[in-house]
């Protein structure tokens, strides 16, 4: 085939007719890729400060009146321990009965304090009445477990917040094992922070964990490792198992 024959080939003519289309196609692809990259840019940034919504299970019950003083959620601490040292204390010198004190000044206004019933003659009938009055006193002091009419019978919080139930359970289980030594100073508590990635199996067991960032305080980081080993995390929902096994769950610990 000669050169003139090639120049007149129908194929070549066809390719020459297509080049404008190819250019247009290239431009369109470039625009699509560019726009995709531009649109994707924000989501590619990892915001470790972003908090997922975590919920507490709200107890089923009546709402606590807002004007009431707060109560502690956990059980009351045990009766105060007495100081272990028993060095002899200075003894007050003996008796003459003190004179009746005059009235206290008004500035520290104090309402009449409820008085404990005084000692009574211990007759047989009084035993029953004293038991009944004790029961009544204890009833008066007992605190209803406030919650929410829409709450969960197994809930442990008195106020509601919305959020992901599984993450709420994970957060609670991690918090239960989250124990730090009291000696970590107040100043350190203001800025300590570490991020750990937990890889979970279908049972919620921690397959492995890795520090994404350490706090720089050996005592704090060691306590986190103990906390993770002690945590009892519930099994992830079926649809999240692969995610938490392969990608892990990030946990940002702060004091």
């Amino acid at each position: 085939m000669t050169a003139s024959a090639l120049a007149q080939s129908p194929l070549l003519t066809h390719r020459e007719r297509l080049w404008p289309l190819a250019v247009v196609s290239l431009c369109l692809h470039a625009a699509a890729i560019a726009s995709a990259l531009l649109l994707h840019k924000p989501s590619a940034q990892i915001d470790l400060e972003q908090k997922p919504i975590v919920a507490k299970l709200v107890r089923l019950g009546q709402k606590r009146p807002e004007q009431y003083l707060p109560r502690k959620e956990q059980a009351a601490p045990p009766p105060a321990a007495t100081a272990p040292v028993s060095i002899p204390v200075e003894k007050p010198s003996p008796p003459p009965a003190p004179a009746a004190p005059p009235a206290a000044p008004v500035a520290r206004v104090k309402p009449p304090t409820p008085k404990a019933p005084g000692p009574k003659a211990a007759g047989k009938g009084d035993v029953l009445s004293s038991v009944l009055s004790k029961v009544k006193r204890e009833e008066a002091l007992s605190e209803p477990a406030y919650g929410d009419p829409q709450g969960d019978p197994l809930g442990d919080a008195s106020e509601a917040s919305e959020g992901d139930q599984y993450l709420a359970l994970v957060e609670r289980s991690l918090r239960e094992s989250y124990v730090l030594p009291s000696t970590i100073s107040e100043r350190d508590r203001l800025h300590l922070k570490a991020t750990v990635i937990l890889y979970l199996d279908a049972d919620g067991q921690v397959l492995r964990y890795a520090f994404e960032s350490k706090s720089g305080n050996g005592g704090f980081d060691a306590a986190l490792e103990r906390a993770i080993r002690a945590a009892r995390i519930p099994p992830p929902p079926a649809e999240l198992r692969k995610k938490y096994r392969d990608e892990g769950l990030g946990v940002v610990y702060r004091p």
Partner: protein
Amino acid sequence: MNSTRAATFALALLVTPALALAQRTYIEVGSPNFQPLPIAMAPFSYEPGAQAEATEIGQVLRSDLALSGLFDVLDPKGFLADPGEGLSASTIKFTRWSDVGAEGLVKGLVRKTSAEAAGEFHLFEVRARREVLFQVHRGPSTSARLLAHQFANDIIQYYTREPGVFLTRILALRKSARGREVVAYDVDGQRSEVLYRDPDIVLLPSWRPDGKAIVFTSYRSGRPELWTLDLATRKPQRLIGIGDLTTGGVYSPDGRQIAFTASQNGNSDVWVASADGSGARRLTTDPAIDGSPTWSPDGKRICFVSTRSGNVHLYIMGSDGSNQRRLTFQGNYNQTPRWSPRGDLIAFTARDERKVFDVFTVSPETGKIQRVTQDQGRTNEEPTWAPNGRLLAFTTDRQGRPQLVVSSPNGERQTLVTRDGAGVATPSWGPWAR
């Protein structure tokens, strides 16, 4: 073609982890349960004649460390100290201490002469297997308690980088057969010292910030007025008397002013005067009852109690009486506020819906109230802060007559430190200086 494939593969390698990372869920876990650091104290060694001092120092140091709320002092019955161990790290079998759960180890040697007692104290970190603190303290032969308090402060300083409070004292009122007494206790409730005794009523003692004098309310002149007592001379001196009643004096943190409650023509208000009693001026003018002032640590604000809302609540104002605003909205009988030296909390007494008096704290910025005592007797009241703001003291009737409790600010660790037959009232925790 090969180069195109390679570029695509490289791009995929770069992009895939980023996408995976972008999808990872993060949660935040806070509010840890702070637990005391397990610390062991080996029985202190002693030279001849110093056994009693060694025992006393050990007891007081153990008590101080436990009271701080920072340490779990291991029961000596739980381990058998090896008498072959010395006071240097090279002689200590750290594995044995680690096995009993200790993270810190305290050892010491006590000496005594006719004129002097001395303690050589060592602190070791068990995991690191090294000595981290060594101190020698000396004092008069009767100063065993003092030496123990000094080393307790050293240990607190080492772990928290903040000074300890075991050389400070707590004032309180006590009734005796000879009248009302203003008593100073060591922080562990021991070594009570009567600073002042009055056959009449004495109320609301409070320290001057330099620790060299106290102010209190006395009826010596026939009506309640503010009096001071120089602790060096023990001589009481009348300071201020305004109207029908003057009471509840508290010095500003710099010691230059004193705030108090005074009632004129039946209207109780908050007043401020110079520390020498001159230049008294009224800060509140509301016809309701205003009183019980407490200074913020920078001296720029005053928290006080007022009935102006109908119930008894806490209010805050500038130290010149400006910008008065209500702080508490829960409860209906909130009183005896005490501003923390850290400035972040105000402790107070409140009566809850069951008519029980308990101790609470409130943030002066947010107004958020947290409970300190709960279901521990019918009356827990009159809180006062340690100068480092890490501990509270208040009185409680949980074991009968009111006694002094030292507590962490959240109430998780509370220790009853006095067992005074007459009971104690209105404690006031002293400053650093003695």
